[in-house]
């Protein structure tokens, strides 16, 4: 009864047909079956946020969804942020502000922030603090992560306030 199930989903615009046992998490399927290892797996029970991805426009923990639940879904991972070799404004802001140290939590933070800002472009600074407390950075670089988000948010006001990749946005 717990045999593998065939299903397909879209990840970063490409369709993947997978065969997974029901217990396999979306995080593991992205890494092992789609070969997209940018999504990191930390705690595997929804606490650390390293595996954060965007599923059908909602920012979620990929370890708290089973892969079979994503049948027909559109998933976006950190690999989607860079287009034609150009970093997204948020990625560039992370570099500019030294917002990554060991870098393990970085993909989760990038997708947390990207997904949340796309859904809610007018997020306040208070709400930003609460948002960033969703994920863990064991290097404790939260101040620099917050600085990077504020820089990126400012830069992107003119570009429709989309903190993800803007095809026409100027990237430094």
């Amino acid at each position: 009864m717990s045999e593998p199930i065939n299903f397909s989903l879209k990840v970063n615009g490409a369709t993947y047909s997978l065969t997974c046992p029901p217990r396999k998490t979306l995080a593991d399927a992205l890494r092992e079956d789609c070969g997209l290892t940018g999504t990191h797996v930390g705690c595997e029970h929804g606490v650390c946020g390293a595996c954060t991805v965007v599923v059908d426009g909602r920012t979620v923990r990929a370890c708290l969804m089973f892969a079979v639940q994503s049948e027909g879904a559109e998933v976006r991972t950190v690999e989607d942020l860079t287009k034609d070799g150009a970093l997204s404004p948020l990625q560039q802001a992370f570099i500019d502000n030294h917002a990554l140290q060991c870098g393990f939590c970085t993909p989760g933070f990038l997708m947390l922030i990207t997904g949340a800002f796309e859904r809610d472009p007018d997020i306040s600074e208070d709400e930003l603090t609460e948002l960033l407390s969703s994920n863990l950075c064991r290097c404790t670089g939260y101040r620099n992560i917050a600085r990077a988000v504020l820089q990126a948010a400012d830069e992107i006001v003119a570009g429709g306030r989309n903190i993800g990749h803007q095809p026409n946005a100027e990237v430094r």
Partner: protein
Amino acid sequence: MKAAPFAYFRPASLEEAAERLGSNADDGAMILAGGQSLVPMMALRVAYASELIDLNAINGLDQVAQGNGVLSVPSLVRHADFHRPSVARGPLGQALATLSRQIAHYPIRQRGTFCGSLAHADPSSEWGVLCAALDAEIELLSATGRRRVAAADWWLGAMETVREPEDIIAAVHLPLLSDDTCWGFYEFNRRAGDFALGMAFCSYRLENGRIVAPHIALGGIEESPRRIPQAETALKGALPDAETFEAAAAAATDAITPLEDPGTPAAYRRDLAGTVVRRALQASAQPKRAYAEMPA
């Protein structure tokens, strides 16, 4: 840290889910909605399911409905869907927006469901204390029919309710609050997003400056959330001032059987009960924070 093997079934309707659960609940089949508590429990091997019946593909369960003074919340309404106060008319919408933002963290709220929180029955559930305070009704569906349970009869203890293994929570029904309803909420936890150590929700109206129809419930303090009649008695007919609020807090402190855990002695939670009651009542007399009409 991986869930034990289980079978997976994705019904197209709530009735089909109920049929399936009716057949397989005895073997350990469970309902999967948001999964933000169940999935980590399965990963930690403290919960096992022979089969997960996933409600997420069922259409029409993700929008609240309002009518006849009631807000109905079906099975797939997520915590984040309450971020906007316009989700419900009047003070209830404001209260829901305020409480929703205290639940776990943003990504968890995008997926976890209101009904799932009631099914899980963690003593520290924000929706639990709200449902207890406002005398919500929980609507259960099984293969043999529908029935409603009053919030006062819902909880049997920590993580335990009257829901049978073959029951699905089809909806939770909350009374809309009249525009003149005063309400307040306060919760305490050691870190933002953690399970709260204690919380209180209160509502009442004023007639000639005095409190009528007081409701006050505690969550996270006892095994399950409930209204505290002794505190409500202290409020009834009184002026909404510091002295009254203190009397209600003292009454609540004496009326409870606090939870105890290795890091938190019962005496601490007893003291905390008074504090959260007093602060929820103080909040009821303050202007409410305005939330932007942002998307969920």
